[in-house]
């Protein structure tokens, strides 16, 4: 548990995941709205709409449906280093929801790609843990997507 009075800035999460796909494909999965729409949500949800303006200062907006509840997240891109690093703000359209910052770092590892995602600025440790579970679940979607592509290639 976080000590009482610990600053929200200290509330951060990090999730690391390796993907069976080259750097270029993983970067595209993080930046092409069409591809993002296939995986960018936790397992219990589906993406309803997703649009983004991929440039520094550009905005994005995503709506996902969890159960029958629609949730919308918005933000701006802060840093874009192709195939290396993507930084963006992240805020749920909810009363009092804080603006957090997500950093996605990509690294080639053999033919695979390792992604480390950090997010900081949560309002509570519970919210941080909730997001850690959410991201782990979304990255699982992405890993399954690449596994599905590899299986299709082998069969083809």
């Amino acid at each position, binding site marked *: *548990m976080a000590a009482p009075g610990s600053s929200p800035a200290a509330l951060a999460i990090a999730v690391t995941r*390796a993907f069976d796909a080259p750097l270029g494909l993983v970067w595209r999965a993080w930046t092409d709205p069409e591809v993002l729409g296939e995986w960018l949500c*936790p*397992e*219990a*949800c589906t993406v309803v709409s997703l649009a983004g303006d991929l440039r520094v200062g550009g905005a994005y907006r995503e709506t996902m449906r*969890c*159960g*029958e*509840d*629609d*949730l919308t*997240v918005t933000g701006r891109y802060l840093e874009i280093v192709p195939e290396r690093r993507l930084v963006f703000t992240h805020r*749920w359209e*909810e*009363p*009092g*929801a804080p603006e957090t910052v997500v950093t996605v770092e990509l690294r080639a590892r*053999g033919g695979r790609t390792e992604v480390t995602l950090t997010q900081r600025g949560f309002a*509570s*440790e*519970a*919210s*941080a*843990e*909730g*997001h*850690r*579970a*959410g991201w*782990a679940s979304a990255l699982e979607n992405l890993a399954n997507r690449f596994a599905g592509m590899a299986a299709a290639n082998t069969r083809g």
Partner: protein
Amino acid sequence: MTADTLSLTFAALSDPTRRAILTRLAAGERSVTELAKPFKISLPAVTKHLKVLQRAGLISQGREAQRRPCKLEAAPLKDAADWVEQYRQFWDERLDRLEDYLREVQEEEKRHGRSRK
């Protein structure tokens, strides 16, 4: 933590409506009626799901007289995530080693001129 607590957590997580509720609460606190509204299921049904989540310690309810918002609790969620992560890393490392081994075998074959063109 005891194995029992972990069982309780995973049992609570075994239902898609309850997972959707948890995802919902990660974005922000909600009252029981606010949670029930979009789910198109009865208030008693939602209350039942919330009780399961509450018993597993995954959520708690505020004490404000009127709204009593539901909120996530960090500890059991973290324990469940840590448990899964431990196994995922184990398999990742094994797959890395298998990949290294296959590469070695391939190189060995090349050196012995056995690769078919």
